[in-house]
């Protein structure tokens, strides 16, 4: 069974009252870890690749002002070889000599993290026009969705911790 990374990221000691509360919902704990695996390290990768997934995760964690979570995903990127272009992605930058496909991915990731309500059909169709396959567009949306889920669980745990 996967460890509860979310407890670790929220800095909850195993014997804390809040860790005990989390343990009463094993479906949520294990479900979140299974989802993390599915978007970061899928058994069937439809094309984005693990280094880009880890780099985008770190980038979205930073956009959500969670540096602890960003460091967690940068460690995953390091374990995958720390490609210099992917390090720039993780840091919220654009790599030198970025191609149209990667530029479209980075734009969309930042945009949907910050302002999903502003998304239109043109934004999604642009991804395909810039070279993503349809399965890659879906996989990117799932990755963006997971990160935006995870940061909100962590934000709540951090608040519960300091207001206990």
């Amino acid at each position: 069974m996967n460890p509860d990374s979310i407890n670790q990221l929220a800095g909850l000691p195993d014997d804390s009252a809040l860790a005990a509360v989390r343990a009463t919902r094993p479906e949520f704990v294990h479900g979140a870890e299974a989802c993390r695996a599915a978007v970061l390290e899928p058994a069937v990768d439809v094309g984005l690749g693990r280094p880009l997934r880890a780099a985008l995760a770190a980038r979205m964690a930073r956009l959500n002002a969670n540096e602890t979570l960003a460091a967690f995903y940068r460690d995953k990127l390091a374990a995958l070889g720390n490609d210099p272009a992917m390090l720039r992605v993780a840091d919220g930058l654009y790599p030198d000599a970025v191609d149209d496909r990667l530029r479209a991915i980075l734009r969309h990731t930042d945009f949907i993290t910050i302002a999903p309500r502003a998304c239109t059909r043109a934004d999604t169709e642009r991804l395909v026009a810039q070279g993503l396959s349809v399965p890659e567009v879906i996989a990117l949306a799932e990755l963006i969705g997971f990160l935006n889920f995870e940061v909100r669980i962590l934000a709540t745990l951090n608040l519960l911790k300091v207001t206990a």
Partner: protein
Amino acid sequence: MTETRNFKVKALTWHPYLPPVELTDATPEQLAAMQVTPSSGKVSPYVRTLAHDPDSYVTRTRLFNDIMYVKGGLDRAERELGALIASCINGCTYCASVHARRYIELTGNANTVERIYRFGLHEPESSRVRAIIDFCEALSITPPSANQNQMAALRQEGLSDADILDLAHSAAIFGWANRLMHTLGHSH
């Protein structure tokens, strides 16, 4: 606040922007994810769109169902309210309509939903509904910005840490679902 007009939220149909998986072309993993059997009828465009990435479809659907329907803890209607507030912030009219209708079914409180639809999230409400709306609104913006005052208001209304976590999960899973439904298609 005491008017009892018959406010109804219309059921919407969701249409994908990109071509969904066709059952005749689906891989074994995609068929398993969609739980397609020889006796299956039509599979919705929503399921067939997300089946392009079968791993995440299966794991997210399981987590989603646990968060919204697991027994005990926060009242189901209040999880629906969390889903509705997140969907309002994220502009997902499809998810909003589904969960607004569920909230009304479970509570009979169409007035709160009508105020949200007509005037937004800041109209007078009972203190418990107010506390839930304020927390979910702040949690749903980017970066998530819920604060200690909102936490105190939830506790004042008798929500335990476990209840607050249930509520946060309902809003947060819609931070995910909205980023699928609103970006991958539209509804009318």
